[in-house]
């Protein structure tokens, strides 16, 4: 286990890993072409390595990294399911990979058909008629939908200022609301983790624009009062937002639209199997009910009576664009490949197996660990290691680090914020029973280990525990010669 040099510390001046054809037109006289004031002085300090060293460097870095292809990745709220290889094959086809976003519509009928078809699939899954594929990830989807919500109220001459978020909600919910100019009010949850209708009722005033709900919520419990909550909100013309991060639990079994939700985002990079890429890219399309359709971003995909597709940039009430072009097309494409592989007949089976796997793993762990929200869950569950912390002096973080020694990526730790010493586990449907058994056994074994082993962990990884405080106190954020 040794350090890996930076690419900048490898190679030698004069090396490179790419050459280009000799120039076949007259070269420009730099001095005559660009006045000195415009021209760069010193060349940028970029790496200088040969091709083999380049490839070796990043291959070695990849070996210092784990992914779904190397082990189970039970990160709660992240839906780390298998990333199908056929998705990658399709996305790398010349007809999708090498298409310019500003080509005339007549030359990109296949791409537009993909977008159009994806909209139809998502609308049907959401139970909402209108879809916008533009947002680049879940958080941008949230922002887009809230902007739409605001434009809707504006169109009625109203300016409600408050967005309600449950205390178990993801950080992007309040952050998106604030970005949209709203005041954020946090709603406490009941002991069972769900929103408390009695507590909520007095909060729902005409000043409320929207409530953002994750369902099942981030502790893995279905918000059974969702319909009643929707009715309360609708009484004052407030909107119910569905955060789709946990859609994997219900996709094809129940629909946010049928629950009374008015708008939602999808995390294509969670529910629909596209790779997380070490942190992104994703895609965060939104679906909305009919009354919100006029405010969706442009351009929209249209299908003419002759079956040809086009992009329509003119919608007078639209909030405008939230990004360039039509979205993270390559991710949406992979998502559509995945959806079509399951089909309408197979989709419910994803949620069924995800919920089965989560409940099975919970059944194997609940004897040993405290499950504050009971013996059943939807697609994920939260354990609290408060008792271990108290009795053994080991924290959720210690368990997470020790899991690494056994070759497992940890569940999400310390989220949601309302559960002390939280370990949030989402085993996903693509994992086999024996993989879950092995994880349960390792967690049990760690729980029986001497605390010192946990405090010292990890010892089998390329690096040990990091000095995170030092990193923030004396930030070193780039290489310097």
């Amino acid at each position, binding site marked *: 286990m040794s*350090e890996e040099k930076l*690419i900048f510390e490898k190679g030698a001046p004069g090396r*490179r*890993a*790419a050459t280009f054809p000799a*120039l076949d*037109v*007259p070269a420009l006289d730099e001095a005559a072409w660009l006045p000195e004031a415009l021209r760069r002085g010193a*060349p*940028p*300090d970029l790496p200088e*390595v040969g091709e083999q060293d*380049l490839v070796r460097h*990043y291959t070695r870095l990849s070996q210092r990294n784990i*992914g779904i*292809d*190397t082990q189970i990745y039970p990160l709660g709220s992240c839906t780390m399911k298998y*990333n199908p290889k056929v998705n990658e094959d399709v996305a790398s086809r010349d007809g999708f990979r090498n*298409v310019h976003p*500003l080509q005339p519509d007549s*030359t*990109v*009928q*296949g791409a537009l058909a993909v977008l159009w078809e994806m909209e139809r699939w998502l609308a049907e899954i959401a139970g909402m008629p209108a879809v916008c594929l533009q947002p680049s*990830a*879940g*958080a941008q989807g949230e922002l887009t939908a809230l902007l739409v919500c*605001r434009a809707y109220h504006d169109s009625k001459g109203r300016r409600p200022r408050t967005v309600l978020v449950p205390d178990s909600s*993801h*950080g992007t919910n309040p*952050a998106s609301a*604030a*970005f949209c100019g709203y005041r954020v009010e946090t709603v406490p949850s009941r002991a069972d983790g769900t929103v408390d209708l009695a507590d909520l009722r007095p909060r729902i005033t005409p000043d409320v624009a929207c409530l953002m709900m994750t369902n099942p919520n981030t502790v893995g*419990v279905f918000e059974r009062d969702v319909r009643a909550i929707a009715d309360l909100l609708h009484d004052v013309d407030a909107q119910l937002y569905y955060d789709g991060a946990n859609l994997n639990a219900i996709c094809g079994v*129940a629909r946010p639209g049928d629950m009374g939700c008015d708008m939602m985002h999808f995390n294509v*990079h969670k529910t629909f199997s596209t790779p997380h*890429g*070490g*942190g*992104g890219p994703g895609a965060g399309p939104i679906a909305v009910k009919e009354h919100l359709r006029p405010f969706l971003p442009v351009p929209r995909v249209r299908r003419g009576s002759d079956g040809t597709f086009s992009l329509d940039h003119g919608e007078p009430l639209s909030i*405008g664009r*939230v990004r*360039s072009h039509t*979205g993270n*097309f390559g*991710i949406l494409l992979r998502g559509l490949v995945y*959806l079509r592989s399951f089909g309408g*007949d197979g989709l419910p089976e994803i949620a069924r197996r995800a919920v*089965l796997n989560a*409940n099975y793993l919970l*059944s194997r762990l609940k004897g040993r660990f405290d499950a504050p929200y009971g013996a*059943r869950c939807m697609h994920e569950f939260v354990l609290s290691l408060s008792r271990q912390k108290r009795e053994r002096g080991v924290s959720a973080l210690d368990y997470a680090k020790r899991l690494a020694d056994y070759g497992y990526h940890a569940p*999400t730790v310390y989220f949601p914020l309302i559960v002390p010493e939280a370990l949030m586990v989402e085993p996903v*449907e693509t994992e*086999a029973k024996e993989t879950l058994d092995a994880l349960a056994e390792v967690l049990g074994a760690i729980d029986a280990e001497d605390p010192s082993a946990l405090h010292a962990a990890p010892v089998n990884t390329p*690096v040990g525990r990091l*000095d995170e405080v030092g990193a923030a106190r004396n930030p070193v*954020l*780039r*290489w310097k010669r």
Partner: protein
Amino acid sequence: MAFEHPYLPQTPEDEAAMLASIGVGGIDELFGPIPAELRLRAPLDLPPHLSEMELKEAFQALGDRNRSTGRLDNYLGAGAYEHYSPSAVRHLLSRSEFYTSYTPYQPEMTQGVLQALFEYQSCVCALTGLEVSNASLYEGGHALAEACLMARNRTGRNRVVVSAGVHPEHLQVLRTYTRNLETTIAVAGLGADGRTDLEEVRRLLAEAPTAALVVANPNFFGAAEDLAAFAGPAHAAGALFVAEVEPVSLAVLRSPGECGADIACGEGQSLGIPLGYGGPYLGFLAARMDLVRLMPGRICGQTKDSRGQRAFVLTLQTREQHIRREKANSNICTNQTLLALAATFYLGAVGPRGLKEVALHGAAKAHYLADRLSKLPGVRLSHTAPWVNEFTLDLGRPAAPVLQAMLERGILAGLPLERYFPGRDREILVAVTEVKARGKLDRYAEVLAEVLGGG
């Protein structure tokens, strides 16, 4: 018969054993918490599942309905450029330890992504001449919006002055992002030479307290701006100077840092990322060190591990939504890490000399083409300012039919400016990169001559 699918490994025997361990009779019981009236009674109205073979056929047919840049001779740019990306870049990107990984929240297991992000940030700093880069944003328009919001936070002012040379879609994104924040956006026009009018900028800066001045280089119309000339007026007015830049051009153009910019942002697609019909791309953002705590998104930092080794970790997270919630600098969570890695691999492959070659070859070829085209009767360059590899061409007649005729001859001759600027119906924006052999450029000129002559 149970539904069989390659991504679902549970056999009927597994299922029975698992249900027994849970203590329920069937999977349906697990859905009990969802009130019955909220559950779907009929299957979704969607086509049935497909095997992998069928999927490939279906999507091959869709892909074939696109005319790719492999089948058309493409001169479209306007923020997305057709460059050659070395084979090594794609091979490294397909290491699934990278692409199937999540955000590196457990750094001991994800040093690979973290170190590559640290190298990415170092590359962005080297290119932009600034001191700190984040680990990526969604795309160029988003990067511009976040840069302006940073300036708004820094100065406590709520107005930005934006050059009309900024990409019109990026300007639209900025408008959308600031819709409900009461931000005023004043647009400074371009002079006859195609560059941002410095006098108008001065006037607008004097008009009201301003958080940021934004100038793009090269600007949307291709002109190379005298970036350094704007820093003084911006700073004198108490505003931050934001430079939106194209990364390949930074091999030849003076960097934002050298020009006195406080923040640099832009679209990183040209660094080895496929055109891909518009995404996923790469938003980059760099700034002076004293602005680091206002930056949006993830930042990777260097530290030591318990064994004393150098190691990398996401840092300064108290800026971010998972900690600060509604007080966060930005709502971004998932970003474009894999594309940041692509840019790093690309820059590692070409190095400083290769990048300069890419920029110079593109510029030489673009000037060669522009020379030939501007000799055609009625055709001229719209602007006189120096430019790099993209130029605005005035065809002297309505462009739409000309572009259509060129397309019929297999050439995507450029972007009709009318798409963004109603009234500018005679002009097109033409981009040329290192991928164009002289023969193609000659053919472009010949075909255009023929189209214009025939009209």
